[in-house]
C-alpha cells in the first residue's frame, strides 16, 4: 500500500470515507514521524493532540489556538495561553482536522532563518547543519519531514515562500485580505497574511478553499467569494502569458539558482506559456521600502507588550522601571532592532523622509504592477537568491534581510504568490521557483502550479524515509 504521507488531503479523506483508513491510523503514522524527526529538527514549540479525522495540521506559533500557547517564539510571551482560536484554525478544526502542533518561528516572525527564536533554532531536514528559512521555518521543516500533513504560516515579506523553497515544499501566500488575520499576532498589519505550506499544490488549494473568505472579525478581509476545491481544478489553463525579468534583475543570485530559473522559464514555454521579458527595475528598492513600512507598523504593534496586559512581567518598584526591564528581558536583539528602526522612521522630522517615502513607493510599485499585469498574467522569479545557508552563517542583519529580495514586493502590493520546489542543487538542497499573479487570481495560479508540479516531479525523498 502507498505510504500514508504520499496521499494528498482529498485522497486521505476519501480513503477514510471508504473505511480503508481510520483517523487513528493516520495520526499514528505522523506521530511516529514526529518521534523520529522532532529531536533533530526542533520544529515544534508545543505538540498537538489527536482529534477528529486525525490528519495533523501544524500551526505557526503566532496564530492562536484556544488553550494552547502562542509564544511567537519570544520570551515575552513564553507563558501566554491563547483564550481564543484564530479564524483560519477555527475553520479547519470545524472540518475535523487535528492540531499537529504549534510550530517554531523567528521571534514575532521577524527573520529569515528561524534562528531568532527564544526556543532555539529549527534545522533543515534536508541538511541538519542548515537553516530551514524563516520565519515560518518550523512549519516548513515539519511539512518537509512529514511530521504534519499541512501547516499554516504567516507571510509578511516572504515568510511562507522562502522557508518552503529552502525545505522543498509548496508555500502559498494568497492575496492580502483573502484569509482572515483574526488570531494572527500582528507584526505589520498591512502586510501580514496567513499562508499555507504543503507537500503538493492540491493540498494548498484544499486548505485555501476552507480557510479563505470574509470574516466580520477582520475588517480587511475581502467579501469576494472563494471557490470550492473542486472548482479550482476544473479551470482550463491551456494557454497563459507570463512575464520575466532580464538576468540583470537577478544580480547576486547563485549560478545554480539562475540556471534552474532559466530551465523553469523553458518549462513554462513548453507548457504553452507565452513568455515576455520585462523591465522590473522599478522593484529594486522594494526591500528598503519594506523594512521601513514593516518596522514602522511593528514598532506600533509591539508596544502592547509592556508587562501589563499579558506575557512576561519583570519585577520592579515603579511602572517605568517595569516597562524597561520587561521589554529589555523579553525581546531578542532582532526585535529590538526593528522596534528602534520603526520608531525612528516614524519620528518627527524623519517621518516624511522615511515612512512617507515607504508608503509612496508602495503605491508607486502597485500601480506599475497593475499596468504590468495587462501584459501578462503571471510574473515568474526565483524564490531565493541561494539555497539554504548554514546555521550561524549570516550574522549581518542586512545580508539576512536581502534573503527576501524576491518576495517582499508581493507583500507591499498585496499580491498572491506561490513557491514550488523545482529541483535539487548539486549539494542535494531544494531550489524553489516563484509565481506571482494579479490580485485574486489564485485559482489560475494554483492550476498552473499544479500543472508544473506534474511536469517537475520533484521527489521529496524525506517522505520516503531517506535523509542526509
Amino acid at each position, binding site marked *: 500500500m502507498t505510504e500514508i504521507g504520499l496521499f494528498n488531503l482529498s485522497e486521505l479523506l476519501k480513503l477514510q470515507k471508504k473505511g480503508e483508513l481510520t483517523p487513528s491510523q493516520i495520526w499514528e503514522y505522523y506521530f511516529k514521524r514526529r518521534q523520529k524527526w522532532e529531536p533533530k529538527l526542533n520544529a515544534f514549540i508545543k505538540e498537538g493532540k489527536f482529534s477528529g479525522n486525525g490528519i495533523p495540521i501544524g500551526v505557526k506559533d503566532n496564530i492562536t489556538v484556544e488553550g494552547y500557547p502562542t509564544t511567537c517564539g519570544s520570551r515575552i510571551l513564553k507563558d501566554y495561553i491563547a483564550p481564543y482560536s484564530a479564524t483560519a484554525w477555527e475553520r479547519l478544526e470545524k472540518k475535523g482536522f487535528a492540531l499537529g502542533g504549534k510550530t517554531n518561528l523567528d521571534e514575532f516572525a521577524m527573520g529569515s532563518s528561524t534562528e531568532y527564536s527564544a526556543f532555539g533554532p529549527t534545522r533543515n531536514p534536508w541538511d541538519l547543519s542548515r537553516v530551514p528559512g524563516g520565519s515560518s521555518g518550523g512549519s516548513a521543516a515539519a511539512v518537509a519531514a512529514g511530521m504534519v500533513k499541512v501547516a499554516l504560516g504567516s507571510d509578511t515579506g516572504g515568510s511562507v515562500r522562502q522557508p518552503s523553497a529552502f525545505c522543498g515544499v509548496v508555500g502559498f501566500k494568497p*492575496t*492580502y*485580505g483573502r484569509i482572515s488575520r483574526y488570531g494572527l499576532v500582528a507584526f505589520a498589519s*498591512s502586510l501580514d497574511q496567513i499562508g499555507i505550506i504543503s507537500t503538493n499544490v492540491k493540498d494548498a488549494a484544499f486548505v485555501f478553499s476552507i480557510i479563505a473568505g470574509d470574516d*466580520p472579525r477582520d*475588517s*480587511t*478581509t*475581502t*467579501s*469576494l467569494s472563494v471557490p470550492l476545491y473542486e472548482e479550482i481544478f476544473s479551470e482550463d489553463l491551456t494557454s497563459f502569458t507570463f512575464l520575466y525579468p532580464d538576468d540583470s534583475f537577478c544580480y547576486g543570485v547563485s549560478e545554480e539558482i539562475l540556471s534552474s530559473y532559466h530551465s523553469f522559464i523553458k518549462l513554462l514555454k513548453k507548457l504553452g506559456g507565452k513568455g515576455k521579458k520585462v523591465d522590473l527595475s522599478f522593484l529594486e*528598492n522594494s526591500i*528598503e*521600502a519594506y*523594512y*521601513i513600512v514593516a518596522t514602522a507598523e511593528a*514598532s506600533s504593534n509591539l*508596544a502592547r507588550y*509592556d508587562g501589563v496586559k499579558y506575557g512576561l512581567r519583570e519585577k*520592579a*518598584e*515603579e*511602572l*517605568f*522601571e517595569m*516597562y*524597561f*526591564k520587561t*521589554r*529589555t528581558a523579553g525581546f531578542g*536583539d532582532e526585535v*529590538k*532592532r526593528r*522596534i*528602534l*528602526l520603526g*520608531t*525612528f*522612521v516614524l519620528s518627527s522630522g524623519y517621518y516624511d*523622509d*522615511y515612512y*512617507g*517615502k*515607504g*508608503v*509612496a*513607493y*508602495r*503605491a*508607486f510599485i*502597485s500601480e506599475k504592477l497593475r499596468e504590468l499585469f495587462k501584459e501578462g498574467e503571471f510574473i515568474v522569479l526565483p524564490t531565493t537568491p541561494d539555497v539554504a545557508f548554514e546555521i550561524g552563517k549570516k550574522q549581518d*542583519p*542586512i545580508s539576512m534581510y536581502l534573503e527576501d529580495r524576491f518576495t517582499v514586493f508581493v507583500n507591499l*502590493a*498585496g*499580491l498572491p504568490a506561490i513557491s514550488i520546489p523545482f529541483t535539487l542543487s548539486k549539494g542535494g538542497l531544494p531550489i524553489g521557483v516563484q509565481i506571482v499573479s494579479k*490580485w*485574486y487570481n489564485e485559482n489560475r495560479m494554483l492550476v498552473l502550479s499544479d500543472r508544473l508540479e506534474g511536469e517537475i516531479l520533484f521527489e521529496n525523498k524525506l517522505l520516503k524515509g531517506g535523509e542526509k
Partner: protein
Amino acid sequence: MKMERGDSSIYVLSRVEKTGKISEDLKRIVDWVSKLKALELPASEFFYPPYITIKRRKDVARIFEKREKLLKLAPELKNGLFKVPRVI
C-alpha cells in the same frame, strides 16, 4: 533602577542599547534604508489592494461629548499619572 518620568518604554530601550552592537547595526540599517530618500515619488495615500473596503466596526468608541464627560470623572492626574486610592 529608578526611571525618570517622561521616558517612554521605547526611549528607555534605545538608551540602554545605544552603546551595544544593536546601535552599530541600526546605524548601518538606517543608512541602508536611506537609499529610498533619493527617489522622486509623488506623495501617496496609504495603499490597500483592490476589493478591500475597510469595514469600520460599529462598537468602536469615538470622540464624542459623552466621552469628555466621562473623562471628567476620571481620577485626578499627578505628573501625568492617575492618582488612585492605594488598595491594601
